[in-house]
């Protein structure tokens, strides 16, 4: 475990940059997949297959005029986009991309931090992110923005509960809150009769996984839960007044949040870097993780291309009347099974 602090900084720096590049190509991926679903071609003018499109988008966004509404609360208007961006990108620190490896005799950990409360860290920063939305909405001095912000607040407060409680089953089974410990536990193999299966928590906690994914889509404000920026009702919701550079921070924050939530789900439920050959070659492990994340991101885009938006009262009704009882049921059943397994009852 001994590595100098500068090495951790380098790992964190690389992780952040990979995340930013991944986010840029995530937008291209989304546009291409959506185009294919709608029988279009998608961006194909800049570079081969439109591969330079993210670069062109970035240049366009940076070149736009930075407008500030006259009655805006200027200070809050300035820093609200930064809140959502920073809280999104900080969360990558506790995601493990593998174990310790050796590069030239120097042990290097493929994660920035192994916190004892890693999963709670992810949830905490996820709930801080909504301040970026509500403060930006308030500061814009625009009624559509404020409506979007209020929707975002109510939605995130409700779905955060589902998100946190759906993980309690995993915590009960693994006995740890550290993301890395949970991932390591899943690399064991499970014998069920003649079958040998990976000990992934999606197999022991299928209900929790489904609930987690629903809550995660709501938490990242993506379709069909994109109430805060419902363009047919609220122009574009909380970022109506934002343009140029500041808008790009909201944009970055949303996509990085999607990638982080996908990483989180892949690590907690799908074994993270676990896969054939991953215990021998760390590169293969990272590849497996990227593959799992890509599947999740495709799922996000698929939802966006398929489902219409929920009505607002339906959205809140689902959270409190359907998902919350289900997630509590999952906790109770898991706790009982855990007790029986320990031989503490019966």
């Amino acid at each position, binding site marked *: 475990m001994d590595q100098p602090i500068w090495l951790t900084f380098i790992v964190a720096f690389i992780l952040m940059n990979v995340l930013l590049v991944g986010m840029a190509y995530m937008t291209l991926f989304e546009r291409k997949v959506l185009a294919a679903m709608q029988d279009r071609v998608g961006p194909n003018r800049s570079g081969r297959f439109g591969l330079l499109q993210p670069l062109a988008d970035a240049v366009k966004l940076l070149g736009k005029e930075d407008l*500030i509404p006259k009655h*805006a609360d200027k200070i809050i208007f300035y820093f609200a986009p930064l809140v959502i961006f920073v809280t999104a990108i900080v969360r990558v620190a506790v995601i493990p991309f593998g174990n310790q490896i050796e590069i030239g005799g120097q042990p290097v950990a493929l994660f920035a931090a192994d916190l004892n*409360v890693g999963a709670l*860290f992810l949830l905490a920063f996820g709930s801080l992110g909504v301040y970026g939305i509500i*403060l930006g909405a*308030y500061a814009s001095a625009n009624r559509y923005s404020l409506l979007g912000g*209020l929707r975002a607040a109510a939605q995130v407060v409700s779905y955060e509960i589902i998100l946190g409680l759906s993980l309690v089953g995993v915590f009960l089974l693994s006995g740890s809150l550290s993301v890395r410990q949970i991932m390591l536990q899943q690399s064991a193999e499970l014998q069920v009769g003649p079958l040998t299966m990976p000990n992934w928590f999606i197999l022991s906690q299928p209900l929790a996984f489904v609930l987690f994914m629903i809550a995660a889509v709501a938490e990242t404000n993506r379709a069909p839960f994109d109430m805060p920026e419902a363009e047919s009702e609220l122009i574009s919701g909380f970022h109506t007044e934002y343009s140029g550079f500041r808008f790009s921070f909201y944009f970055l924050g949303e996509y990085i949040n999607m990638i982080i939530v996908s990483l989180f789900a892949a690590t907690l439920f799908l074994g993270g870097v676990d896969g054939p050959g991953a215990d021998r070659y760390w590169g293969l492990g990272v590849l497996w993780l990227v593959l799992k994340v890509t599947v999740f991101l495709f799922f996000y885009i698929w939802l966006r291309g398929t489902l219409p938006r929920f009505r607002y009262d339906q959205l809140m009704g689902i959270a409190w009347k359907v998902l919350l009882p289900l997630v509590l049921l999952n906790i109770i059943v898991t706790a009982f099974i855990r007790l029986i397994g320990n031989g503490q009852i019966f």
Partner: protein
Amino acid sequence: MSWEVVIFYLLALVSILSAGGIVVASNPVHAGVFLILSLFNTAGIFVMLGAEFLAAVQVIVYAGAVLVLVLFVLMLVDPDDLPEFHAGRPVQRVVAILLGVILLLEVGIAILNRTIVGARGNADAMTIEFLGGNVQAVGNVLYSNYLLAFEVVSLVLLVGVIGAIVLALPERLGERVRHRRDTISLAHARGVDMALPEGVRGESPIPVPGARREEPVAEATRELIMTRDPDSYTDAGEPGGSRFRPR
């Protein structure tokens, strides 16, 4: 100076400054932002004291709680009151500062002169490492020594939730709250209401059944926002004159 000292003073400074910000901020939304900043920095100090679990709990619980507070500000505070600074009468301020200084002196003397009674516990770094970490150590104490208290606290939370629901209900179910003012747009100090002549408020375009509507005075003509020159809504141009300045 080790790194820990530097980090402590940084966290403490930001925490104290933002705590002062809550007291002097004239806008309650700013006060809410300062509060979350202060709590966040205190969570950082919790981590320094080896209480990672409580730091995470602090951020999660208070992030939600303060968010709801900010929402209440947006809903309840009259926009005309927003820029004013409600800081009581001068005598109150003087008395508060005096009391604060006296209390700080007393507590300071108490801190410097205290003695430790009782033996030190055994929860050193080794034991915590053996238990698996801070979360496991807290859980161990919580569920072996304080199980009854834990159950009672969960009951208190349940009663609190029911009480909040009962308080927030209208007097009779299904009845709208009497004398309802306009929708949230009113709660915003510097919305497009400012584009109207003085003394006139815009209403929500959505009709609220049973709500008391304030009719605008006859000579007020409402203009759609886009019929004006867009530059008059940004900092680029200042054609509006004194009426359009933010209050």
